[in-house]
């Protein structure tokens, strides 16, 4: 499903954020990624969703080798993913509802059906009564939850979450992770970047631990 072999990433400045990374995440697996600040966790996710190209090595997603992908095919690759960003990346000029609608809009989804799905996603993260609110009127944690709703609304086959609970109290963090687990149980591949050791211990899934760009075993 997600397979990296001997992947390195050197940024234009010369800094090598990832060094010789190889691993495979099977379809339907749930994996944690940890590591200190600057270890290369977000870089890894950027490579997987083709935001950045690797400097060397090959990345295979759902059997497609990213380096052989035409630029025009990249959008369709991305529609397989549900992405939760470390910095939310919400649009501040449209309502919570419209933010969550975006991934359905770009695929030309039927409008009425889409609205139902958006409300279901907002309900899952506890923001149904805030659907008309603009993101600026949401608290930090609410914004993070909105970002989660947007990532799951189009029922992606792979969920990539970068610090999804960084701004959430432990009660909410637990709830959100339970939700991810339930997705995983219906076949979604889930990759969660976090520095919350407690959560990892509690769920006990496979963990990829990064240290200065290398995968520690």
């Amino acid at each position, binding site marked *: 499903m997600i397979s990296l072999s001997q992947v390195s990433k050197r940024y234009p400045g010369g800094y090598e954020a990832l060094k010789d990374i190889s691993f495979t995440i099977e379809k339907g697996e749930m994996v944690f990624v940890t590591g200190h600040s600057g270890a290369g966790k977000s870089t890894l996710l950027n490579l997987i969703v083709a935001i950045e190209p690797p400097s060397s090595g090959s990345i295979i997603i759902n059997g497609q080798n990213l380096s052989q992908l035409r630029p025009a095919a990249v*959008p369709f690759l*991305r529609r397989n993913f549900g992405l939760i960003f470390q910095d939310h990346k919400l649009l*501040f000029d449209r309502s919570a509802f419209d933010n969550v609608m*975006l991934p359905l809009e*770009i695929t030309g989804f039927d409008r009425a059906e889409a609205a139902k799905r958006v409300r279901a996603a907002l309900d899952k993260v506890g923001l149904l009564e805030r659907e008309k609110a603009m993101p600026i009127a949401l608290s930090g944690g609410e914004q993070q939850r909105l970002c989660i709703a947007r990532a799951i609304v189009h029922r992606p086959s792979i969920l990539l979450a970068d610090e999804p609970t960084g701004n959430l109290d432990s009660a909410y963090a637990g709830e959100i992770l339970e939700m991810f687990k339930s997705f995983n149980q219906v076949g979604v591949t889930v990759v969660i970047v976090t520095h919350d050791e407690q959560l990892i211990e509690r769920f006990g899934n496979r963990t990829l631990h990064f240290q200065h760009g290398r995968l520690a075993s």
Partner: protein
Amino acid sequence: MSRHWRTLMSTLRRLAGTPIATLITVSVIGIALSLPAGLYLLLSNLAQVSSSLEIQPQISLFLKLDAGRDAQRQIEQKLKSHGAIRTFRFVSREQALKELSASNGLGDLAAGLPNNPLPDAYILTAKGNDAALLDKLRLEVSQWPGVESAELDSAWARRLNALLELGQQLTLMLAVLLAFGLIAGMGNIIRLQILTRQEEIEVSKLVGATNRFIRLPFLYHGALQGLLGGLAAWGIIATSTQLLNISVTRLASLYGSTFRLGGLAMNDVAMLLGISAFLGWLGAYLAVSHFLRHFHLSHH
């Protein structure tokens, strides 16, 4: 289809949501458009005026003072059947004296003269404007019996040509300047509008939007903005024509004419609106495409 409809609606809402900014942008585009369109209108009005004037070089054919009725009738016959002559007009010696005194502000010259010194004359225009041809014609007719001399008023023709050339050059210069200014200005407005919506583009790309999808709202925005600018230009031109007509009709009445400036015809208006919408669309297309080519998700 429904996506197009929704994009159109949301673009309209976006324009209506910032009414002052929209008004300013639209009037800037309108002013920029109204200059070349107004120039076009002015030129087509001028063309109408000048086609009603004799702008062709003329040949003046002076008869001998002692040429009789017979000689004159023969000359007239020859003029009628001559293949190179387009029109001719008889000017009697009495008429010539009257025209002379009128056109020179010399008062009633005729009354003060003991006897009329001017000869009878014919004023000819030729088919074609070629200088060599005209000179050949002049020589030919000057040798007909009963003809004293034939003159080509080429100085006047050369002056008019030089003047027209100057006007055309000025027009061309203005048109080039304005066309460049218009395209650059529209592109610039849309470029800046894209910059203010950069995040929207970024997030859309991240969730899997194609370039087509990202481009659409900007194309609608550009085309709509252009169309509104075209409407503004129409309004500006219509108002200006009304205002100018006050002076024009006064001027025309001094020449005993009822001429007034014509407005834009319906198909001209359709063309203006079409061109302005297209320019807006094109500016948007160029600006978005340039942006998308140079925009990378990782480094802004």
